[in-house]
């Protein structure tokens, strides 16, 4: 056996010491004993990778000592995070070495949910799954296989989709965080993707309920922009937060504008009113690129009011002020600043779109970007190109697969413009026995903890005879599984980390194994490939890859061939590359693919910092080639539904009042440390969940001092939060930043015993019929002393 590196160094050290002390008579460390003190200096190493915990997917740099991951730092070369990191990223070491990690593949031994498991080899577990899936295919029922995926990005998503497709199942069910902004962009621009914001170059950011410093698409992107010097001429953007809740983002933005719940969009149109009235908007841009601004005649020959008339007639500042509670002078000054401090951009968040008419509200907010021409321009809303990685092999479909994928996906339909909550619809269909599902795969999804309706999920799971989970932890939903094939953790596996939607430049981050993978766990990507191989036939042909790592390398050949972009590099290199590309130049740094790949792995990814602002295809892809303020598709859908909703008129949440029984409005929100309810809690994060230094571990709710006083509660009272739909226990915190008569409830916390404390389970179930997204702030609750 060859000596390990440490042994080698020790030998070197001992030799050097012997040489140095040659001739000395009493060399007391000559004996072996003195070396055997139980402590040895470790071999230190730093390696770049990508954080896969949240959709931001920042660059990380692991500090390894003797092969153990002891610290996670930021990777300064990553263009988005630039060396910064959030607490969740830092606490990743506690996830990696979590004592509750599953040791290896397991089969259910007793009754379902009974907690009895049999440990098996991974070959055994995988053949069990392959046999079962093979039976489904052989019986001609491939469509009864479904996947519930909580992580939907990059190559892992691509191969899951390819696997299901070639298998013959249309049931790829995404269980993820939607915000409805993709529907807004699809309607107005004909571009069906979420908007990206050029925060780095914006000078004013008007955030309508987007939790930019907390649980946004990428808080790090906002942090980096926020961190630019604030008092110099060429400074970073000024952040204005328009929010109902005095959130952490609101408190740290340069300005906070408090609005009544559900009236964000009214304020946006109030700003539009001032922009039009004072002729501050970009008339040239509107004339050249926008339709629906002036009155028009629709396809049916009916005259219709355009945007200008609607806004001028309905959103006089006094009226807007009465609805939103924002003083007239403040509305005017916001509008003037939005026009004067260019480039400026309005960001639309979930507080706007998670409402009964959230889509119309989202359109209204985005319309002020259109008015100012803040589209496809530096500092505005951008639509980046996809990262040019190689596509997967063309899927091969046989008869069975063709018949299967031709079927209606379970729980499909949903809403006209967005998928809403497809996971819940899927569960409802299964629980209601409308659609048979014979096998369910769970990939980073834990709906029993995270769903608004865990009961529906429990019923659905009982109806599914075969459930496979890939979770590394025995979470609430995994307990119902028949087979568990625990995945590796992000620090042990190869995976690509594509750009978050909010970031306007393509980044292809690369997560690589920093530590030796734990015995027993297996990369789910490799499991999918192995499953495909053992199923054989067209499924194997559709995924002809030996390993997930090899597949990633294959895909990176697309980046090498595209003749633009760069492996991650510092500020100077990024600027240099961008400026070259702006002038039409690109210099190859590697003649061969292998050194390119090695550098890509070493630096942690690839990026292209160039954006073509002159490309009209990135402005609008509608039939007319213009940005449609009055999208025909929307009017048609509303007419079809017989809906009385009117764009730019019905943008506020109908003002509901609490009843005598349930008098407090519930405002759920995500906390940055635990943006989803699916992860096992890291202990360091449990010790600092929010802004209250004395609330450790426990779920809490915030109420205003006078509300607490009226109810007779004091700080730290243990209360039940009760709605007609359910209740949960939480600690009451008196917080002066909370609006009276509201209860702000963080989402994603657990009781110290691990039970979820989920405010979403109290929601009244109302949603936006156009997008299917839930309404988060229309539920009323009461508080009871425990």
């Amino acid at each position, binding site marked *: 056996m060859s000596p390990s590196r440490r042994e080698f160094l020790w030998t070197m050290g001992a030799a050097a010491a012997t040489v140095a002390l040659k001739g000395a008579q009493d060399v007391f460390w000559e004996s072996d004993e003195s070396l055997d003190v139980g402590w040895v200096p*470790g071999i230190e190493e730093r390696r770049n990778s990508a954080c896969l915990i949240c959709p931001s997917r920042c660059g990380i740099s692991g500090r390894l*000592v003797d092969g*153990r*991951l*002891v*610290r996670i*730092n*930021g990777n300064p070369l990553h263009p988005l*995070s630039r060396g*910064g*990191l*959030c*607490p969740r*990223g*830092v*606490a990743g*070491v*506690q996830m*990696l*070495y*979590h*004592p509750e*990690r599953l040791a290896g593949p397991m089969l259910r031994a007793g009754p379902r949910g009974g907690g009895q498991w049999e440990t098996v080899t991974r070959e055994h577990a995988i053949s069990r799954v392959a046999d079962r899936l093979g039976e489904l295919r052989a019986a001609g029922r491939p469509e009864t296989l479904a996947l519930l995926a909580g992580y939907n990005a990059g190559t892992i998503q691509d191969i899951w989709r390819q696997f299901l497709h070639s298998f013959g199942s249309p049931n790829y069910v995404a269980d993820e965080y939607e915000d409805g902004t993709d529907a807004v962009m699809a309607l107005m621009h004909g571009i069906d993707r979420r908007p990206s914001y050029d925060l780095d170059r914006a000078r004013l950011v008007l955030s309508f309920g987007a939790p930019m*410093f907390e649980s946004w698409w990428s*808080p*790090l992107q906002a*942090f*980096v922009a*926020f*961190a630019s010097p*604030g*008092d110099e001429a060429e400074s970073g953007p000024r952040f204005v937060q328009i929010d109902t809740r*005095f959130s*952490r983002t609101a*408190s*740290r933005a340069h300005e906070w504008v*408090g609005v009544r719940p559900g009236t964000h969009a009214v304020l946006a149109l109030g700003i539009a009113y001032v922009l039009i009235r004072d002729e501050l908007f970009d008339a040239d841009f509107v004339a050249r690129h926008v339709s629906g601004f002036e009155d028009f005649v629709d396809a049916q020959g009916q005259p219709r009011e355009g945007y200008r008339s609607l806004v001028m007639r309905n959103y006089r500042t006094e009226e807007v002020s009465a609805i939103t*509670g924002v003083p007239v002078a403040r509305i005017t000054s916001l509008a003037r600043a939005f026009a004067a401090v260019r480039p400026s951009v309005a960001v639309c968040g979930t507080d706007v779109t998670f409402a009964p008419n959230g889509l119309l509200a989202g359109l209204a907010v985005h319309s002020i970007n259109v008015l100012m021409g803040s589209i496809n321009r530096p500092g505005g809303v951008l639509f980046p190109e996809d990262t040019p990685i190689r596509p997967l092999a063309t899927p091969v479909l046989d008869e069975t697969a063709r018949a299967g994928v031709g079927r209606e996906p379970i729980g499909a339909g949903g809403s006209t413009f967005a998928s809403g909550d497809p996971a819940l619809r899927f569960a409802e269909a299964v629980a209601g026995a409308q659609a048979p599902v014979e096998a369910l795969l769970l990939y980073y999804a834990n709906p029993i903890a995270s769903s608004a309706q865990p009961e529906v999920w429990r019923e659905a799971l009982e109806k599914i005879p075969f459930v496979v989970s890939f979770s590394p932890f025995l979470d609430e939903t995994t307990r119902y599984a028949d087979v568990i094939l625990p995945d590796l953790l992000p620090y042990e596996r190869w995976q690509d980390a594509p750009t978050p939607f909010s970031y306007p430049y393509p980044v292809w981050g690369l997560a690589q194994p920093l530590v030796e993978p734990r015995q027993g766990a297996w990369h789910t990507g490799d499991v999918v490939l192995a499953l495909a191989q053992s199923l054989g036939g067209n499924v194997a042909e559709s995924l002809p890859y030996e390993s997930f790592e090899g597949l990633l390398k294959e895909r990176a050949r697309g980046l090498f061939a595209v003749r633009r972009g760069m492996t991650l590099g510092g500020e100077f290199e990024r600027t240099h590359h961008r400026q070259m590309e702006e002038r039409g130049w690109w210099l190859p740094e590697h003649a061969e693919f292998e050194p390119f790949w090695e550098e890509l792995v070493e630096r942690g990814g690839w990026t292209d910092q160039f954006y073509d602002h002159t490309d009209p295809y990135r402005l609008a892809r509608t039939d007319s080639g213009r940005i449609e303020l009055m999208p025909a598709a929307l009017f048609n859908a509303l007419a079809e539904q017989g809906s009385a909703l009117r764009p730019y008129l019905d943008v506020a949440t109908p003002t509901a009042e609490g009843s005598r029984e349930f008098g407090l409005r519930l405002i759920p929100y995500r906390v*940055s*440390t635990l943006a989803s309810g699916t992860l096992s809690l890291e*202990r*360091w*994060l*449990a*010790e*600092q969940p929010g*802004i*209250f*230094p004395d609330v*450790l*571990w*426990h779920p809490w709710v915030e109420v*205003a*001092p006078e509300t607490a006083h009226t109810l007779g509660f004091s700080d730290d009272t243990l209360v039940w939060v009760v709605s007609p739909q359910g209740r949960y226990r939480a600690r009451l915190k008196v917080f*002066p*930043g*909370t*609006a*009276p008569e509201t209860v702000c409830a963080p989402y994603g916390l657990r009781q*110290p015993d691990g039970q979820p404390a989920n405010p979403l389970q109290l929601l009244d179930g109302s949603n936006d019929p156009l997008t299917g997204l839930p309404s988060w702030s229309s539920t009323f609750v009461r508080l009871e002393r425990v």
Partner: protein
Amino acid sequence: MARWGMVIDLDRCTGCAACEVACKSENNVAAVSADQADMGRASSWMKVMAHVEGEFPDTTMHFYPRPCMHCDNPPCIRVCPVQATYIDDEGIVGQIYARCIGCRYCANACPYMVKYFNWYGPEWSESERQHLNPDVSVRPTGVIEKCTFCHHRLQKAREDARADGRELREEDYQPACADVCPTNAIAFGDLDNPSHAVHSLKADPRVLRLMEDLGTQPKVYYLRPRE
């Protein structure tokens, strides 16, 4: 001789608490169970404190990341009967665990409440031991622990600089909190060295030190928020 200090810009701090978790990770600060945390026994060498003023909707909130102030005139060392807590030549206030008898006088004397008592030995499961930082010792039961400005990083940086035959540079020695901060709110360096950012930052008119009137002469400065 360097005089190490920190300047924290309250306008830049968003209260994300990355510093807090990075500190725990760097210095092997163990989490305690929920019921012990309820008794105030959780340790957090760096703690982000929120300061809220006003009533809704005219509320303001600022976050004060609070490490040890590394006072030039530290009240903690005056009361220590065994000289377990001390200030070194470069102004770093340290704690010698082997000497500490756990009387907790220093914890009571510290006006900033930055000294934490180990009611138990650290609770690390077998798997969690693997992420312990080998550069920092874990503390036994019955001693006080505190922020050290990541002193182990200074030692290491010095050795590296000496090995390279050069002077210690500003970026060579940064504590974990300053290192991780995503908004660059925390600046760290030699307060007496004009080439270090903290030297000029501490002369900023916005500068503020916590409870300065006690005469503790803290070396952690805050830049108060602009209105």
